[in-house]
Each structure stands twice: as structure tokens, then as C-alpha cells.
């Protein structure tokens, strides 16, 4: 049951994030929606690495050998978070510059090339 809920949340976040991007009229809002899409990947990876009745993969208080969840997916998610932060920063920088150029944040009104 919890598992289903986890995978369903992943699918929901992916879908709603894409919905947000498709309907977005504001570039800042769009960047926020992209982070929702990304949150779905965090959840998927950590959900896969989870194990009932297991502790964190840190053997400071527990001796090595106590049941622990998967450390590999956690390392992957850490990388994922860095990717998310860097891409968000880059996108926001683009958005800022674009706002200075055109005075608008509306994704619908700015076209890359004039007709």
C-alpha cells in the first residue's frame, strides 16, 4: 500500500509538473514547475532504495552489519540535487537577463526570432 502510494506520488509529480510547464505563462513559474518534475526523480530513487525496518546507511551508532537502506541511490540523489540546483540557477539567470532585455516574463509573448 505504501509502495503504491510512493510510485503514484512519483507519477503524479511528474504529470503535474509537466502540466505546469505546458500551461505556464511566466518563466519564473515554469522553472518552479521543472523542480516539481525533478522532485519525482528523487522520490523514485529513494523509494527504490528503501527497506522496511532498516536504519540509515551510517554505522556510527549502530555497528556495521545492522540492516540499512541502500546508500547507492542516496549518492545518486545527492548528484541529482546538485544537477537540479545548477540547472535552476542557470535557468533563473537566463530568465533574469531576458527580463532585462524584453521587460517581460511571459513565455507566450516572447518569440525567439521575429517574423
Amino acid at each position: 500500500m505504501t509502495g503504491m502510494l510512493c510510485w503514484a506520488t512519483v507519477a503524479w509529480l511528474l504529470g503535474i509538473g509537466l502540466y505546469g510547464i505546458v500551461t505556464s505563462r511566466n518563466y519564473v513559474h515554469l522553472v518552479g514547475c521543472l523542480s516539481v518534475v525533478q522532485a519525482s526523480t528523487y522520490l523514485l530513487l529513494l523509494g527504490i532504495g528503501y527497506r522496511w525496518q532498516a536504519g540509515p546507511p551510517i554505522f556510527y551508532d549502530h555497528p556495521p552489519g545492522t540492516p540499512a537502506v541502500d546508500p547507492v541511490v542516496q549518492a545518486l540523489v545527492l548528484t541529482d540535487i546538485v544537477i537540479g540546483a545548477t540547472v535552476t540557477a542557470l535557468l533563473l539567470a537566463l530568465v533574469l537577463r531576458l527580463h532585462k532585455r524584453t521587460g517581460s516574463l511571459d513565455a507566450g509573448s516572447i518569440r525567439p526570432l521575429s517574423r
Partner: protein
Amino acid sequence: MTPRARLLVFIGACACVLPAAVDVVMHMPAFGVHPLPYGDAVNRLGTAERHVTNMVSLVNFDVRGFDTLGEEFMLLCAVTGVTILLRGARGEQPTAEPGYAPGRPDVRRSAAVTAIGRVFAPLIVLFGFYVVLHAMTTPGGGFQGGVIMASGCLLIWMGDGYRSWRQMMRTEILDAAEGFGASLYAAAGLAPMVLGLPFLTNILPFGQPKDLLSGGLMLVLNAGVGFAVAGGFGVLFVEFLEETRAVPLGGGE
């Protein structure tokens, strides 16, 4: 497409994807009980082979340290990109005044806010440093600590205002820290190659488990990440906050 047509296309496509998604969810391995051979192997080997207690750091800096190398340089890439995008067009002006929102009253910050900022900023930076140091034993590491250090400095901005903050953050130093940290990571990986061992082989003594200085080469790599992330996020904050300053007389975009 009109927004309406676009939404219809999106909904139609989602309707097609939905049955497949349900099928996949039904066939996913059982949550919390399926085998995890890779992670278990790391948990089994980690403390015995590298004398560290934090397995996530072990994966990040040793077993899959090559991924982290790429990750560090990805950060470097993004920061350089942001610098080009923002600094490239406006130039750098460490002494400029902040801009202000029209119609918004100019509230002076109270002495208490300033004091809180000045007291807590060093504390948070210190805490970030602590987090970096304890990567091998408890949760934390170069990345988390670096972000905390860079964010801690933001308290000066909130307490003392833009100008004091900007005078504290020197881009030359931040750039250098970032480049140095990332290069340190790569150089530490190259060092074993001089001895004829594979890239990133852990050649330093491993120390004792639960000891701050356990993990051998991982300590150097962790320090490199700490420098790179603190510098990188520092540059990001500087470049973004410079966007809130006023344009100097005669200088336009």
C-alpha cells in the same frame, strides 16, 4: 498552438500514457522488501575496507568517486555560465548601491536584526565547516557544508544590507576557491596514476573508524568538494544579488 489546443494535446497524450503507467506501477518490485545487491555489498564492505562509517560518503568519494568528479565540474560549468550571463552584460561593481522597489517604503533595519545577522552568520559558516569535516562519520559532507557556508553569508545581506555583504564577498577569491576545489579533486584523482594505480585509488592511510580523519584520500576529495561548492554557490549568490543593485550613473545595459 493556442493554449487551449495545447492543453487538449497534453491531456490526450496523458490519457494514452496512463494505462502504461498503471501497468508499470503494478509490476514494480515490492516496496521495501526487494533485493538491493549493490547497496548491500557497499554496506557490507565499507567499514571494513575504508574505515569510514558514512556509506553515502563512501559511495560519493570512493566507490563512485568518478561521478562526483563530473558533478563538481557540472557545478563549475553552471557557475561559469551564470557568470557569463549575468556579469558578462553588466560588468562587476562591488561598491554599487542597492536598487529599491518603487512605492515601497524604505524601512531601516533595526539594530537587533543587524546584530542577529552578525552573530549568526559566523556561527552558520562554522556549522557548515563542521558538516564538511564530519563527512566520513556522520551525515554531511563537502556539498552540504559548502552550501551551508555560502548560505550563512547571506545573513549578512539580510542583516546589514547589500553593501556590507557585497564588500565581504570578493569574486576573485570565490572564483579561485571554486577552481581550486574542483582542480584539487581532479589532481587528487590523478596522484595515484603517477604511482601506476588506477585513477582515484585510495592511497592514503585509512585511519580509525569513527575518527574524524578516517577515509584516506576521501578526506582530500571531500575538502575539494567543500571548496568548490562554497565558492561556486558564493559566486551564484553574488551574481544574482548584483542584479538587485542600481545602475550607476551613465551606465546602462
